[in-house]
């Protein structure tokens, strides 16, 4: 059962998994980039981003590019560590 314990509930959804995957290999990604890669609606993405932010797995940075507001996201240290653990747990579960 200890293996199952390592499966992180916060990542137990395809879209949150996708967001974290993208932020693992990119220093940061903005809202539009995430939306295009994941092919989902604004509202849907916003709710999943909020969930990850609540766990402090990702950080949000608001800035202006010219006059346009731009929100970009990055994985926190905690988030990266948690995600690595999650992947390891997945691999172990499959490896058996």
């Amino acid at each position, binding site marked *: 059962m200890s293996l199952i314990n390592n499966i992180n509930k916060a990542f137990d959804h*395809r879209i949150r*998994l*996708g967001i974290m*995957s*993208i932020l*693992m*290999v*990119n220093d940061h*990604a903005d809202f539009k*980039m995430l939306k*295009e*890669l*994941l092919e989902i609606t604004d509202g849907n993405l916003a709710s999943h981003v909020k969930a990850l932010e609540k766990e402090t797995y990702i950080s949000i940075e608001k800035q202006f590019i010219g006059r346009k507001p731009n929100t970009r996201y990055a994985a926190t240290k905690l988030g990266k560590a948690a995600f690595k653990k999650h*992947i390891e747990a*997945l*691999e172990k*579960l*499959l490896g058996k």
Partner: protein
Amino acid sequence: MESNKYLEDISEIKNMMSRSSRFISLSGLSGVLAGVYALVGAFLAYQVLSDYSGSSLVSGTMRSDASVVQQLFLIAIGVMLCAIVSGIFLTMKKSKKSGEKMWDVSSKRLVFNFLVPLLTGGAFCLVLIQYEIAWLVAPATLIFYGLACINASKYTLGDVRYMGIAFVILGLVNTQLIGYGLYFWALGFGVFHIFYGALMYFKYDRK
């Protein structure tokens, strides 16, 4: 049943990681075509050059240097335009098939990282011409093109890296064999493009 879901999770993770960091729709076939254009261009350039030296020796109706340079310049521009146009066209076709956006963050990043060393090299070659060190232009173009490929390879199919390394080596060898620039160009931009383009075509495009 559970493990099926985890398997899908893993494949989603892999997919998102490579999609978000690499532009994978680069067409191998466009590399092959670029190589073919380069070989045709090199052949035409060879004709122009041998006509030039031939006519000046035999009939004395020597054409001006300027017209030869102009012709070579036109050939170079023609080859480049053909390669870029067919490259964009084929990549567009492939990206439609794979569902990847043609002009998104990853392709922009790819183009940017490719252009930085390439434009630096271009400017450097102009400086070489300015100081009349023209014999180093051919090796310099090969070396900088190779560096551009190595730099860009982090953001697209990894095979581009090996082509870049091959170009850099070819350029360095060329520095020791001055006067054969055209042959080295034909080997690099022609043969290497065809070889690596075909390799990538069979590896990725035919799926």
